[in-house]
């Protein structure tokens, strides 16, 4: 008698807007797992101050609990690869999702990769700006040390460069993180000091709201357009009302849902998905498709 699959999902902080959606996806898939006698456990760090190391600890925690399958993002490969290899060495099926790409999955011996890619997400944003003739952009980075966020900014700058534009990264000091007013005012100052900037890109939900506010206060709402990654109701409302141009969607819900479903099928029935690298993004949400997205956000799935 199979008692079901014990699946561990490594992810972001539980109160992270993006990760709470991934978590929702994993939990929704988990309903099936539970119906079959298994369980889905979410392991996330308390904060992102020590991301690679903390995540590696979480992977080891999952191993020590005799997981039947593990899903995890390869945020900081140098820090986490060793732990992932230990997963594979222990004979536990592994899926890499959200960060790392197929490269990581292959390198680590994981079954598959599900997700988007920070660099590609940023790149898509850069191209979107470029296509809309916004050739001078700034990437607001509220956590300037984190590799994935830096990759996003780098992608953005590469994307805009492809269209002949240019951009800079604006790293904010740590005392501003989590303080929307400080972020808004910093962006405002940057815009006032650099009147040529016409595009702003933010790396998280909260920052997008703050940035919209900063642009408004600089009196540049007509000229400076805002883009970013991820979304919530407010961002979609902003897109609808025109105060935000677009957002890059990597469909976190699918990342969690697919990873858990695939592993559950694999553990219980030996199923495998032959498609290597399941991409859930980057997709672009802008005024043209915002209404369709709204419904999903309301359900907590987007």
């Amino acid at each position, binding site marked *: 008698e199979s008692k079901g699959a014990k699946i561990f999902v490594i992810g972001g902080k539980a109160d992270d807007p993006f990760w*709470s959606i991934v978590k929702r996806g994993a939990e929704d898939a988990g309903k099936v797992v539970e119906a079959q006698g298994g369980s889905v456990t979410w392991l996330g760090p308390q904060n992102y101050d020590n991301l690679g190391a903390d995540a590696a600890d979480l992977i080891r925690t999952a191993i020590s609990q005799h997981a039947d399958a593990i899903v995890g993002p390869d945020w900081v490969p140098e820090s986490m690869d060793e732990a992932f290899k230990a997963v594979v060495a222990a004979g536990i099926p592994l899926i890499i999702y959200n960060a790392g790409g197929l490269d990581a999955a292959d390198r680590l011996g994981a079954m598959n990769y599900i997700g988007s890619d920070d660099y590609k997400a940023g790149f898509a944003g850069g191209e979107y700006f470029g296509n809309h003739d916004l050739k001078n952009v700034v990437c607001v980075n509220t956590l300037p040390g984190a590799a994935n966020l830096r990759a996003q900014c780098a992608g953005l700058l590469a994307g805009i460069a492809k269209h002949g534009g240019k951009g800079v990264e604006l790293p*904010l*000091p*740590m005392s501003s993180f989590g303080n929307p007013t400080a972020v808004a005012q910093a962006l405002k100052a940057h815009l006032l*000091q650099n009147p040529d900037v016409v595009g702003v890109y933010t790396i998280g939900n909260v920052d997008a709201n703050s940035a919209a*506010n900063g642009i408004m206060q600089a009196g540049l709402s007509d000229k400076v357009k805002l883009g970013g990654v991820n979304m919530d*109701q407010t961002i979609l409302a902003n897109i609808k009302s025109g105060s935000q141009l677009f957002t890059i969607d990597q469909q976190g819900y699918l990342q969690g849902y697919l990873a858990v479903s695939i592993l559950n099928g694999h553990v219980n029935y030996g199923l495998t998905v032959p498609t290597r690298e399941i991409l859930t993004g980057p997709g672009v949400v802008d005024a043209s498709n915002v209404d369709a997205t709204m419904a999903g956000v309301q359900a*907590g799935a987007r």
Partner: protein
Amino acid sequence: MNSMVEIQTAAKAGSTPNLWSSIGILMRRPEVGSFLGMVAVFAFFAIFGGANFVTAGGTASWLNVASEIGIVALPVGLLMIAGELDISIGSVIPAASMTVATISGYYDLPIMVGVLAALGLGLLVGFINGVLVIRTAVPSLIVTLGSLFAVAGLTLGVAIILTGSTGVAIRADPLAKAILGQFVGGMFQVTIFWWLGAAIIVGYLLHFSRYGNWILALGGDKVSARNAGIPTDRVITLLFMGSGLCAAFVGVSQALLYNSAQVSTGQSFIFNSIISVVIGGVLLTGGFGSVVGIVFGTITFAIVNQGIFYTGFDANWASLIIGVLLLAAVLMNNTFRKMALTYTPKKK
């Protein structure tokens, strides 16, 4: 400890009854040091920040940030003067944001209901903190750390259950927005006026009402304060409730200002408010401080934090410059006080 010695010397020197003493009286006020620190960093950015920094927009940049930190820093400062710390504000702010957004945004109840519920939540957390600190004799840092985690956890858990997400949008009616979440002139947050109001009230409490005396005595020596007939338990509980209320207020106003609430904002307020208070000359060990000092300290911190974006400096070096400037401001403060006190025009 050092600064205490400093202050005592100040008092002694200031009291010599001669011509010099009128300057002494002014100079021994701790506010003067904080004021000079503030002027110094302002001057720095006025020079390196160029024209934009001294415009209305530039002023709004740091004033908006200062106002939000300031509303929290005032009651945190009072607590510190009374010898206690409150770090639970870091999760009361998002909890209050989420409360008002959930009630008035997600469930569409009248905005008043949401605001009152949020403020009530702040008071409740403060009350619990106060009672725990009094009853258990556990250091308030630990008690409020416990409530910091507990409130953060509750906020997240309840938000997911009720709204299914970690961020909720809220569209306040124009009146509520005008009162709590408006940009005056398109750039100055109304919180600036609330801050002013709070500073006046707290200033009244600390410096002009009898309760100020109780707070100072409490921080100076808790046992002696109790022996002198001060209802120490009540004062401590009320002070914690005050900081809960103010933190909740900031949460509410942020929700209305940004039309949305998130589970995870607010942690930076813990650090920033404590720092502002200490820059303003309040003793970390309690018993000494002034509201004007706290206000100057907050402004200093906000200017340093935001002014950097008006300079042409590479943003990668921002933190370095902030660190050096903060130290310089506080040093300026101390040095000036010492200099002024040991200088005497003619030895009598």
